[in-house]
C-alpha cells in the first residue's frame, strides 16, 4: 500500500497492522512524499508498473485513475463494510465513483473552511466597531474578512511580536490551487450555473473571467496581513500558524478542529468555525455581468476532495486489498481517525458528522456542534464546488498555480497571469481531446447530453 503525508501514514500503518494481526495477512505501507505522489502513481500505472495493491490518493486524481481505466470497481461486500449509505452523497458520487461506477473506499472528506479566533473577536469587538463602524463577527464576505485582517495586523495585534490578521495557502506546487479556488469560488461560481472551471457547453476556461481576476486581485491585496513569507506557506505552515496563535483568521481544511485540541495548540476552546466567506458580487458568466443576491455569494470549495483508497485493476490480491481498504473505510476506524489529530481524516460521513462522536472524544458540546454544523453547512451548500478531477488535473493545476504565484508576487497583473493560464488550459484540453474532456466535465457536474 502507498500513502501520502507522514501523519496519516503513521495512523494508517497502525490500522493496517491491526488488520494484518486479525487476518494473518502481511501488509507494508510505504510513504510517497505528497509532492511526488500524483506523479509517481500516474507514471507507474501508465507504464504498467506495479506500485501497490492499495493507493491512498487525493480525489482530484480520480479522473486520471478511475477514468483512465486503471482501477478495480469496488465489490458490493466492500461497499457494505464501508457503510456506503452512510457516506455523504457528494463524496459517494464525486470522490469514490466515476462514470456511475464505485471504485474507491472512503477515508477522508474535505472542504476548505473558515476559522477565526473567537476569544480575540470578543476581546476586540468594541475597538473594532469604533475603528470601522462595523460589528466584529465571523466574516460572511471576503471584504469583511479583509477588514478584520487589516484591523488585527495593523491595530489590535500590532504591538505583539507575532500577530496577524490571517493565514492562507498560496504556495505554488503546494496548496496554491486550493487557496485560490476557495476564494475564487465566491466570486465566480454563479448559483444559476453549474459550471465553474470551464464553460460546460464549450470547455472554454473561465479562470480569466472577471470573477476569477477580481478574486486574485483581492487576494493579492490581503496577503500583506498574513505572516511574513506567507506566499511560501503550505498546509503545515498554515495550520501551525493558526493553532500556534499568531493568526486571527484561517482558511484551511477541517483538520484545524482536532489540531486545536492537540498539546501544541494554544487556541484550544478559542476557535470559531464556519464556511468560507462569500463575495459581495459574483460574476454571472451567462449574463456576462456582475450580479448579487441577498447576501454574499457563498460557494464552499471541496478542495482536494479528500483522500481515499483505490485498488489497481492489476493487483494480484484484489480481495485482500478491498478487505483492507474497506476495513480502513469502516465506520469504526473513520470515527476514531476523524477525532484524532494528524490522521488527515476529515468528516465525510454521517457518523463522523454526528456531534455526539466529538463529545465522546472530549469536545465541549457547543463546540462539537459548531464544528460539525460548519462542515455540514459547507458540504450541503447548494452552490458548493467540488474540486476538479478531470484527466490532466496536475497540468491544469500547475498552470493555474504558476499564474497565481506570478500575480501574488507582483511579476504579472492578475488579468495577464490568468489569461496566460487560460491559454495553457486550452492547450491542455485540446491535447487531451476537447470533446472527451467536456464529456467528463459535464458528467462531473451532473449534466447529461
Amino acid at each position, binding site marked *: 500500500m502507498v500513502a501520502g503525508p507522514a501523519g496519516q501514514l503513521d495512523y494508517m500503518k497502525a490500522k493496517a497492522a491491526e488488520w494484518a494481526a486479525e487476518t494473518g495477512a502481511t501488509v507494508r505501507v510505504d510513504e510517497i512524499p505528497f509532492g511526488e505522489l*500524483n506523479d509517481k502513481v500516474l507514471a507507474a500505472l501508465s507504464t504498467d508498473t506495479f506500485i501497490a495493491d492499495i493507493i491512498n490518493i487525493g480525489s482530484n486524481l480520480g479522473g486520471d485513475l478511475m477514468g*483512465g481505466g486503471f482501477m478495480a470497481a469496488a465489490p458490493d461486500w466492500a461497499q457494505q463494510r464501508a457503510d456506503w449509505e452512510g457516506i455523504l452523497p457528494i463524496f459517494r458520487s464525486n470522490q469514490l465513483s466515476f462514470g456511475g461506477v464505485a471504485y474507491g473506499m472512503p477515508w477522508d472528506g474535505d472542504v476548505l473552511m473558515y476559522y477565526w479566533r473567537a476569544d480575540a473577536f470578543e476581546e476586540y469587538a468594541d475597538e473594532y466597531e469604533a475603528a470601522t463602524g462595523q460589528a466584529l463577527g465571523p466574516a460572511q464576505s471576503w471584504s469583511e474578512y479583509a477588514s478584520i485582517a487589516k484591523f488585527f495586523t495593523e491595530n489590535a495585534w500590532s504591538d505583539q511580536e507575532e500577530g496577524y490578521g490571517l493565514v492562507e495557502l498560496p504556495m505554488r506546487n503546494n496548496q496554491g490551487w486550493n487557496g485560490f479556488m476557495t476564494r475564487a469560488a465566491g466570486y465566480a461560481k454563479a448559483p444559476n450555473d453549474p459550471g465553474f472551471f470551464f464553460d460546460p457547453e464549450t470547455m472554454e476556461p473561465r479562470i480569466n473571467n472577471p470573477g476569477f481576476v477580481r478574486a486574485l486581485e483581492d487576494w493579492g491585496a490581503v496577503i500583506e496581513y498574513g*505572516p511574513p513569507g506567507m506566499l*511560501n506557506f503550505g498546509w503545515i505552515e498554515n495550520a501551525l500558524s493558526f493553532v500556534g496563535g499568531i493568526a486571527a483568521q484561517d482558511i484551511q481544511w477541517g483538520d484545524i478542529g482536532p489540531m486545536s485540541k492537540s498539546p501544541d495548540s494554544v487556541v484550544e476552546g478559542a476557535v470559531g468555525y464556519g464556511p468560507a466567506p462569500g463575495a459581495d458580487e459574483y460574476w454571472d458568466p451567462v449574463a456576462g455581468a456582475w450580479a448579487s443576491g441577498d447576501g454574499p455569494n457563498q460557494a464552499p470549495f471541496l478542495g482536494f476532495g479528500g483522500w481515499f483508497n483505490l485498488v489497481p485493476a492489476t493487483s494480484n490480491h484484489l480481495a485482500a486489498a478491498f478487505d483492507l481498504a474497506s476495513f480502513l473505510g469502516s465506520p469504526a476506524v473513520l470515527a476514531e481517525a476523524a477525532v484524532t489529530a494528524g490522521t488527515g481524516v476529515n468528516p465525510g460521513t454521517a457518523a463522523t458528522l454526528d456531534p455526539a462522536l466529538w463529545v465522546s472524544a472530549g469536545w465541549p458540546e457547543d463546540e462539537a456542534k459548531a464544528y460539525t454544523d460548519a462542515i455540514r453547512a459547507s458540504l450541503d451548500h447548494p452552490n458548493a464546488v467540488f474540486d476538479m478531477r478531470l484527466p490532466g488535473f496536475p497540468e491544469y493545476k*500547475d498552470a493555474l498555480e504558476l499564474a497565481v504565484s*506570478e500575480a501574488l508576487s507582483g*511579476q504579472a497583473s492578475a488579468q495577464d497571469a490568468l489569461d496566460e493560464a487560460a491559454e495553457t488550459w486550452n492547450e491542455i484540453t485540446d*491535447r487531451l481531446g476537447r470533446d472527451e474532456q467536456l464529456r467528463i466535465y459535464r458528467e462531473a457536474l451532473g449534466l447529461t447530453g
Partner: protein
Amino acid sequence: MLALSIFPLVFSLGLTFTNVNLFRRVPLQFIGLDNWARIFTDEALLETLINTIIFVGGGVAIQYVFGLALAVALNRGLREQRLMRILFLLPMMVSPIAVGFIIGRMVFSEGFGPINDLLEAVGLPAVAWVTSPGMAKVTIILVDTWQWTPLMMLLMLVGLQGIPGEPIQAARVDGASEWQIFRHIVFPLLLPVSITAILIRALEAFKIIDIIRVVTGGGPGRATESVTAYVYNVGAKQGDLAYAASAAYVLLFVVIGVSFLALYISRRVQERYA
C-alpha cells in the same frame, strides 16, 4: 559502457523525434523536428535556463571562494583541525531535501527564521528571502552554498597538500609576503585542481532540483525553477516524455559548452602562469 551510457543517450535522443506521452495512450508517431522547433518558442524553458545559469554561476563562484578560504585556513594548521574538518564536511553528508527544509524553509523563514530575527535585532529590515523573485534566487544559491562549499574545501585542501614546499620556502627566504606567495605560487599551482573542482561542482549544480522543490517549489512564479525542475514537470507531471527529453538535451548542450569553455580557460590560464 554501451549499455550503461550510450544506449540511454541514443534512446532519449530518439524519443525527441516522437510524440511519446506517458499518460496519453496515443499511437507512437515520428514527428520529425517538432519538439526541437518548440524549444525555440518555449519562453518557460528560456526562463528556467537563465535561472539555472544564475544558480550555477553565482553558487559555484561563492562556493569556490569560501571553499578555498577554508582550505587555506585548515592547511595552515587551524586549531582543532580534525574536528573542524569533520564539522565543515557535515553539510555535505545531509540529504539535499533535509538541507532544503532545515536551511531553506526554517532558517530563511521570513516569519520565524533566525536570520530575519537577527537582522531585526541589529535594526535592519527583515528580508523576503523566499517570496521576492530576486531574493528567492539568492536564497537558493545560499542554501546550495551551505551544502556544497565543503566539497570545494575538500578538493582545494587536497590540492594545497599536493603543492611542494620548496618554492614556498624559497619565496619566504627571498622576503615574499604571504599574500605574494599565495598570489604568485600557491594560486597558480592550484589552478588545475581549481578548474577541475569548479567543473565538477558546476556539472552537478546544473542539475539542481531537490533544494528548489523543497524551498520555493520553483516560485514565486517561475523565479526559481531550474531546467531540471522544468523537465521534471513536463515529463513527470504532464507525461510529455518526448518534449522533456528535448529540453533535457538543451541542458546537456549547455553543460557541454560550459565544460569546453572551462577547459579552454584552464589552458589559457595555465599558459599564462607557465
